[in-house]
């Protein structure tokens, strides 16, 4: 336990690295506890609606207004009734028109529409729908005047639709909403989770796989080396995005499938780097000394050779974490990998890109800043670890 403590104490001697470690831990925390931290669940489609789309930071969530639908049947131009606390009265005005009065004490009526009116009947101060028989009343607070036309119909049937104003709820969107109505903060937190897992686990996984293959290639040489390196060459000749597309088309969508794809893409650079450093180290006297001391092959590779390979590997690892995150965003954007409903930071940024030049800055900027901080802090932590593993660097 004390070794970890002294390791940490040494680590934080560098203030910038300490700050970045804190940030990385914060991101890791978000990644682990996302469902508990996020105010809303951006995956639950029922939780958000397009009504809330593109709201600026600090806006409150709007409760949908109530809707009420009344079917009215008027004879001789008269009708009267009540339904769900809404009373209505239709009566002729005297100059051949009908007046409709409504009382909805429980509703703050913001929208009023009349549907299914016969052709001849028109409504004053109302807009007619171009296709359907639907009249939208301009000012629902005033009484509605209907013009039945030259002949007063004996029976007049129509439907009345009332809508109340959307009311603000207590929940507010701290960072605004995106184009689909999702809370940005929640989406970002869940996005951190996905990006972090994909980046860290993917890159570390490919480092483990790639380095093992590199060590094996360097130690055994000959045919084993040739086979492994030719496979790596072959794979490197295909653009990584295409490899990812191919793998994910076969495997399907999901975070675990993306991790497999990333390992399959990134192992090559780790394998090649490890192999070239290992080949140089294998010529050193200390490896011969280890052989002379009859240590096992595994031990020599893991305990003697691999630590000397770590500095370049750590640097590549930190670069690859960012690269893995970007790769995943591209793949999700292209429709494989993650569905649109489970956004990562990368996908949020790509979605928000179209809003860049409008004034709706929050949709792209916040995920972008978070992604940048994540990548930078991981890189700084990686650099510090590399320096700490090198006993010769003055700290």
């Amino acid at each position, binding site marked *: 336990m004390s070794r970890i403590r002294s390791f940490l104490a040494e680590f934080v001697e560098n203030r910038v690295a300490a700050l970045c470690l804190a940030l990385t831990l914060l991101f890791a925390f978000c990644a682990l506890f996302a469902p508990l931290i996020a105010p809303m669940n951006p995956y639950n489609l029922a939780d958000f609606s397009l009504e809330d789309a593109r709201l600026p930071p600090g806006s409150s969530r709007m409760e949908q207004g109530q809707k009420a639908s009344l079917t009215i049947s008027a004879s001789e131009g008269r009708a009267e009734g009540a339904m769900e606390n809404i009373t209505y009265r239709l009566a002729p005005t005297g100059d051949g028109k009908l007046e409709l009065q409504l009382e909805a004490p429980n509703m703050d009526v913001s929208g009023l529409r009349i549907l299914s009116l016969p052709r001849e009947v028109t409504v004053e101060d109302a807009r007619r729908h171009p296709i359907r028989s639907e009249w939208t009343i301009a000012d629902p607070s005033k009484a509605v005047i209907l013009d039945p036309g030259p002949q007063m119909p004996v029976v007049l049937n129509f439907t009345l639709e009332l809508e109340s104003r959307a009311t603000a709820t207590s929940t507010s969107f701290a960072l605004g909403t995106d184009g689909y109505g999702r809370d940005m903060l929640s989406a970002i937190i869940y996005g951190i989770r996905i990006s972090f897992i994909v980046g860290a686990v993917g890159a570390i996984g490919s480092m483990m796989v790639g380095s093992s293959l590199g060590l094996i290639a360097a130690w055994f040489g000959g045919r084993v080396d040739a086979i492994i390196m030719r496979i790596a060459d072959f794979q490197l000749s295909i653009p990584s995005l295409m490899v990812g597309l191919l793998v994910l088309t076969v495997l399907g969508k999901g975070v675990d499938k993306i991790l497999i794809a990333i390992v399959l893409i990134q192992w090559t650079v780790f394998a090649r780097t490890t192999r070239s450093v290992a080949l140089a180290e294998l010529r*050193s*006297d*200390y490896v*011969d*000394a280890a*052989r*002379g*001391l*009859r*240590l*096992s092959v595994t*031990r020599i590779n893991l*305990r*003697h050779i691999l*630590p*000397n390979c770590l500095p370049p590997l750590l640097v590549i690892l930190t670069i690859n974490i960012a690269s893995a995150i970007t790769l995943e965003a591209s793949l999700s954007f292209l429709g494989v990998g993650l569905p649109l409903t489970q956004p990562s930071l990368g996908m949020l940024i790509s979605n928000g890109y179209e809003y860049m030049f409008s004034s709706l800055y929050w949709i792209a900027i916040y995920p972008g800043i978070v992604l940048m901080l994540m990548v930078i802090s991981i890189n700084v932590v990686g650099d510090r670890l590399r320096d700490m*593993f*090198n*006993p*010769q660097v003055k700290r």
Partner: protein
Amino acid sequence: MTAPEDTVISARDVSKSFPLEKGFLPTVRRRLTGRPLRTVSAVDSVSFDIARGETVGIVGESGCGKTTLARILTGISQLNGGSLTYDGMPFDEYMKDPARALKVQMIFQDPQSSLNGRMTVLDIVGEAPVFHGLVPRSQKEAYVREYLEKVGLSPDFIHRYPHQFSGGQRQRVGIARALAVKPDVLVCDESVAALDVSVQAQIINLLMDIRRTLGLTMLFISHDLGVIRHLCDRVIVMYLGRIVEIAPTEALFANPLHPYTKMLLDGMPRITTQRREFMSIRGEIPSPINPPRGCHFNPRCPYSTKQCLDARPPLDTAEKSRRVACINWRDAAEAAGQA
């Protein structure tokens, strides 16, 4: 020839060659044409015996194969010709038991690369003893401290890294590492070559001390004849992969029989107050890839005759306990006596 009773190491026609051509196409060509792959012979059929407790020096210049031979004797490289026996047992069998295989250890030349820069002294020295069960893990630190003291280093250095030491101190760590597995035979491959003169003296004294207290058999490989003369009971002189002379140390220095040994001793820089006249030395050391026919030394030998190109001269007994690989050694001795 049979080896005497107390022989530790017995080498008969030990050879090691490295392929010059590797890979797919040359192998195909070989299969199709039947011509063998080109190789370079690093060690070319050497035979000798090493008795328990003695210190044998192996001297030669670049390309003579002494380093390759050292690695074969310590099991780091494999021979591909001839046979090697340890304590009467064939080498391969001997090496099968890890406890036995630890009995032959090597001290390397370069203090820089012979220690793993990322391991502490504690691990460098203590790893193998713990791995092989010579000492339980709980006792590792005490064990390493003991061995650091044996080589003249402060036990407090246990948590330091190699780069914090000087060359001489690193060499001591290397010696401690070898001693910690309790060997019987120590092979020192140019172990003091990379050190300063004053540090060299310290390390040589250390080696002599542990040789005495631990009863070690030592093989000391060097190009420095002064050090060899000081440390060794017998000397083996090698040239381009072959042994050219074996003799007790004083006899070799007083009266070298092989022309190459003579050249080596003449060319050796000596501390003197008078400027010497240098003998004009002919030629370069040939490349091991294309060695001269017959006796490898014949292009540079002042005593070479036509027969020298015919065949490899055998390593014959010249005088009591001296062997020379030269068909003209008697003439050479006469000529030198007259000069």
